[in-house]
């Protein structure tokens, strides 16, 4: 493990039951402390599967993962204490209000009492949800649900935050608020691992990116390094298209 790496993966392979083709084909990468690490790739490239393995949702078929010095296979409970997850799908109870949802998830992360109450109120305020906090989530707009989905994953101040397309389907205002607060979290010391299809957003937000396609990492580096490495490419999107080509994916 490199001195400052908080996540290290080695030869990570995942084959789902009933399928011959691996979704993740022996990938290796490391994420340094306090980085915003972007895992970018077209649909079906293996981004969500990689994040799901890293946050302990299901085990890899083979390969090694170390998170903050703990082995994924040996100390999953310890890892779960320090990571926060914001899934791609809205993972909230639609018939509960925002406060009720956050109360439940906060307690599940071990945050309780006044500490939890204060955090809930602060985050609701930061994301402009205070007024709607007692309304059922089913009545929220897509942007409001995305913001609440994010709060539910950061209530316990995680060391590492996994974000799977956190700004998908939201308006520019909501997206800006989300990115601003994520940058603020990162400044406070949270390492962020992030997937997105918004290349412009990733270019500005990420300090390091890995481009993944067909289950393999095909390029790694900072956005600036990658742009410089491919002559004729002026931004991350053009690098992405250059590497992954224009063929439509399933």
């Amino acid at each position, binding site marked *: 493990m490199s001195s400052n790496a908080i996540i290290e993966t080695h030869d990570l392979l995942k084959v*789902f*039951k009933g399928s011959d083709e691996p979704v993740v084909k022996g990938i290796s990468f490391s994420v340094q402390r306090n980085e915003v690490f972007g895992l970018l790739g077209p649909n079906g490239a293996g981004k969500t599967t990689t994040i799901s393995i890293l*946050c*302990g*949702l*299901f*085990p890899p078929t083979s390969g090694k993962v170390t998170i903050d010095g703990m082995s994924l296979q040996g100390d999953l*409970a310890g890892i*779960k*204490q320090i*990571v926060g*997850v914001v*899934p791609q*799908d*809205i*993972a*909230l*109870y*639609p*018939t*509960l209000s925002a406060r*009720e949802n956050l*109360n*439940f*998830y906060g*307690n*599940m*992360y*071990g945050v*309780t009492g006044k500490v939890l109450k204060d955090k809930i109120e602060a985050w609701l305020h930061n994301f402009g949800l205070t007024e709607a906090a007692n309304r*059922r989530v089913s009545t929220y707009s897509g942007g409001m649900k995305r913001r609440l989905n994010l709060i*539910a*994953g950061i209530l316990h101040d995680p060391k590492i935050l996994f974000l799977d397309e956190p700004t998908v389907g939201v308006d520019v205002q909501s997206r800006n608020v989300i990115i601003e607060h994520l940058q603020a979290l990162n400044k406070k010391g949270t390492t962020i691992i992030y997937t997105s299809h918004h290349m412009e957003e990733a270019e500005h937000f990420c300090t390091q990116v890995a481009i993944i396609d067909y289950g393999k990492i095909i390029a790694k580096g900072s956005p600036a390094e990658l742009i410089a490495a491919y002559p004729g490419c002026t931004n991350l999107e053009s690098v992405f298209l250059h590497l992954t080509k224009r063929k439509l994916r399933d």
Partner: protein
Amino acid sequence: MNKLKAAIIKEILLLLRDRVGLAILFIMPMILIFVMTLIQDSAFKTLNEKGIPIVFVNNDNDSLGIEIGVGLRSSELCTVYDSINGKPATAETARQAVADGQFLVGIVIPAGATEAVRKNVTQLVEQTLSTDPVIETKVPDSVDIKIFIDPITKKSFIASVTSSLREFISGIKTKIMFRSFAEQIAEIIPDKKKTPSNAFGQTQIIRYQEIYASKTIGAIVPNAVQHNVPAWAIFAMFFIVMPLSGSIMKEKTEGSIFRLHTMPSSYLMLINGKIIVYVLVCLLQLALMLSVGFFFLPMLGLPVLQMGHSIAGILIISVATAFAATGYAVMVGTIASTEQQGAIMGALSILLLSALGGIWVPTYVMPQMMRNLSAFSPLNWSLEGFYELFLRGGDAASVAGSALKLMIFFVITMVIASFVNKLNRRA
């Protein structure tokens, strides 16, 4: 502890906001109890009390006809009518009325029936007491009592009616025979002349006492309320498979389970929140259903629910049933892949297990093969426990066996659910 408390609060809120689920849990079983008890109570009365309508035509107007009429009227088996639409019944109108379904049974005593019996008996007595060695043996004339039967009438009821008729006829024959013997003896021995006594005919040498075998004094008579209230309460408790498996499925489809699996909380802890809430819901359901049987059914003229004398016994079997029902729902919710699959699997399996377990029809009317199968239904174990308390006057010890079976069932369902959950996550 805070995690469990949060999980319980979340489950309660989700349940309170699921109006359809609440209706399934509380209103449906109450309606079922009302409807099924009223239907079965009516059927029970038709078959066992005074409901069976019989048209009785007495063309004899002598001892036999009168005795049968009095006997039928005093029987708890039926209600006797001797007129049809305000006109005295005749053999023909009685046959027609039974054919029309107005009466289930029609009985016609022919004219001169008593006289024919008397003549036949006297003849038999004379033949028996005769000293003439070459007396001619005559075959007695038969008396034809006609019984018209509606084809829908149960065979067991027809057997009861014909058996009662035979009893009346036999009693009258005995009386006539005794009188005839007395008269013949009086003729043979004139100085011993006595008025024939009626005492013989009125003496009941053998008597029957019907006693329901119960563990306590003051037996509880089985009726529609005693069966239906516990039966449908058990059905309702197991029907939590619908909202509970639905709640588990929603967590899968709405994505909450994704987040929950990434949290520092075990699957068992998450499920425990559900188990605690739904066990309490089951107990609440049972309390409500028993209240219906105790307070509301009597308002409709139905018998009051008798709950035996063992509160500890009721608590033990109720808690065990609640755990078994909750465990089953968790297992279905974990195994099913979609909400629709869970709903169909849950509803159909509970309907099947309840039919098998004697909820719809008591097991004693089932064929032997089905009775053997019913021993595998957890609803039957629970119902047997409640029968033990409510009908046989049992106590906590007498329901321990049923409760133990239900708790083992709960443990098995939880082990299966846990195993399936692990299997799914290993995908």
